[in-house]
């Protein structure tokens, strides 16, 4: 539990420092979109995405953590990935942009988004369980 809270604090500190230094919201879906599709215009997003991969890579190489077992089928990975991309683009944010930054700014819009995606997630897992997919 302590490790979980330390992880959360690091996410919060990184988000706060990104705004304090570069003046940008740490919304990962938007950062990834800009890094891949607006190449060059906002090069800081490419650096941020590289960091997102390199941080965990350093943890692995140093033997700090082991990779988790990914027990999710390929169909779920692909269908879920497309839905995550479409949903975060249309809804203007994900767990970080709406959940951490938006709610930290006391944005009602972000709080509604978080309530909706959490409820949709819970409902979807429940339906998968009822449908015998879990």
């Amino acid at each position, binding site marked *: 539990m302590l490790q979980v809270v330390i992880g959360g604090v690091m996410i919060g500190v990184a988000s706060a420092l990104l705004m304090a230094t570069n003046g940008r919201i740490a919304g*990962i879906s938007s950062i990834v979109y800009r890094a891949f599709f607006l190449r060059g215009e906002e090069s800081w997003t490419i650096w*941020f995405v590289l960091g997102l991969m390199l*941080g965990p890579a350093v943890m692995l190489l140093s033997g700090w953590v082991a990779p988790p077992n990914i027990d999710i089928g390929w169909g779920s990975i692909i269908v879920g990935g497309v839905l995550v991309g479409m949903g975060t683009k249309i809804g203007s944010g994900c767990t970080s942009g709406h959940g951490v930054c938006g709610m930290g700014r006391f944005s009602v819009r972000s709080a509604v988004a978080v309530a909706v995606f959490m409820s949709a997630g819970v409902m979807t897992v429940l339906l998968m369980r009822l449908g015998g997919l879990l």
Partner: protein
Amino acid sequence: MSGAVSLLLGGLFGIGLVLAGMTDPAYIRGFLDVTGEWRPELAFVMASALVISALFFQLIQPNMARPLLAEGFSLPTASQIDGRLIGGAFLFGMGWAVSGYCPGPGIASLAYLEPKPFGFVAAMLVGFKLADWLAPVR
């Protein structure tokens, strides 16, 4: 300079995601599985990140004239709660449950050099473009 800072902050964010367990899809599904063997720890990840974020955005950022390394703050101005927000968030919640990944942990998991995170990220990029095509911002 801002590139190097972005790299470091991305690294800090990614390490935070791994420590918090967010890169383990089974853990995400466990959090959403309230009628099964519910694993509520994820609530503490968001709560602890949110405490830091709220302290910063409410107490520190409003008192800063400008960011340390940029001309000005780029803050979202949208406040409308409309069909795009609700529908988009709903699709995202479904995808999060089905795959066990949200965007940050998907990218961070590329470090594991396993095929499935690459599949997730590729599918997510396709989803971004599908959204631009099917639901363009007018």
